[in-house]
């Protein structure tokens, strides 16, 4: 009798969990430095909540801490999804403070920025292994996507069984080549967009609702 009661309670707990109001899913925005991750995070957050996530810059590693915008509810084609957007620092395997000196930065500031950047990348990797439910992988469509960091990151995401959408950003620029990205990662859907200009955001939101809803 006790066994049956326990079994019934277990089944009830599982079904309650399955049909309970879902917690917002944490969607990590990942990609190499300067792909436009923060511009995209700000675009999504502004479109659906009116607020931004963080400052944007052409200098690499402007985002040096993972930043979260909670409870962003996106509605498209009858589908509604509530997500927490996690904007992460651009992932790389090397950070040299001397690169920042080219951006009119004093050495002390450049060293401080590089230290913060390394901490941010380590944090982003940790988030990827432990704390995200899905990934938007942002690539600059004017650059070669076939880099080691991209290959490794996509491999890591796949090994975690996380749903992933690849966003080919900066399609407003003449050098943009979306096909190069879809050819590099044919196993995933590639969505073209310009986060800066707001181009193709309807499809972006449709895909977010479809993949993460």
């Amino acid at each position, binding site marked *: 009798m006790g066994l049956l009661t326990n079994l019934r309670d277990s089944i009830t707990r599982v079904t309650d969990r399955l049909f309970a109001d879902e917690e917002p899913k944490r969607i990590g925005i990942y990609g190499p430095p300067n792909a436009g991750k923060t511009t995209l995070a700000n675009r999504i957050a502004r479109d659906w909540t009116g607020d931004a996530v963080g400052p944007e810059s052409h200098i690499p590693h402007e985002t040096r801490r993972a930043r979260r915008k909670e409870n962003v509810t996106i509605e498209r084609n009858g589908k509604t999804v509530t997500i927490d957007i996690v904007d992460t620092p651009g992932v790389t*395997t090397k*950070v040299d403070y001397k690169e920042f000196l080219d951006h009119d930065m004093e050495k002390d500031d450049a060293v401080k920025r590089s230290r913060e950047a390394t901490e941010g*990348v380590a944090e982003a*990797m940790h988030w*990827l292994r432990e704390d995200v439910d899905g990934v938007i992988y942002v690539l600059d469509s004017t650059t070669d996507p076939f880099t*080691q960091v991209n290959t*490794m990151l996509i491999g890591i995401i*796949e090994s975690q*069984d996380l749903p992933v959408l690849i966003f080919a950003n900066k399609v407003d620029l003449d050098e943009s080549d979306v096909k190069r990205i879809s050819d590099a990662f044919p196993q995933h859907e590639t969505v073209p967009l310009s986060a800066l200009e707001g181009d193709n955001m309807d499809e972006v939101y449709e895909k977010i609702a479809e993949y993460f809803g």
Partner: protein
Amino acid sequence: MPEATTPDDGDAGDGVRLDLISGARMEGLTSMEKIRLILDSVRDGDIVVLEAGLSPEEESKLIEVTMTEISPDDFSGIEIETYPSTHQPNQGLMGRLLGKEEAPKKLTVIGPANQIETLHKDEDLISALVSRR
């Protein structure tokens, strides 16, 4: 229990030392031992070539640990190259729960970021320029 160290058999002098590490040697190491083995060599200015590569989780940890060790004017990180995987086995959650994860079999080259530069990479060729310290 294999030691997570490389044999110290002398100074490379003006040359660049290459450590070619077999899959068998890496197999007996824990993830952190592998990462330590790689980073200790790379921080000494050596180039490490792994016969069998790292798993995605180990690659993720390698990036994380590398970031914590970067310091100005001393170590600026790593350059890493593997052949692109032409077949991505999507094993799924059950396969991994049942411990059926396949070991990656991809030759991997890792070196100090300030000494190694990838010149060309495709499915079956990695061409790199290695400079002295």
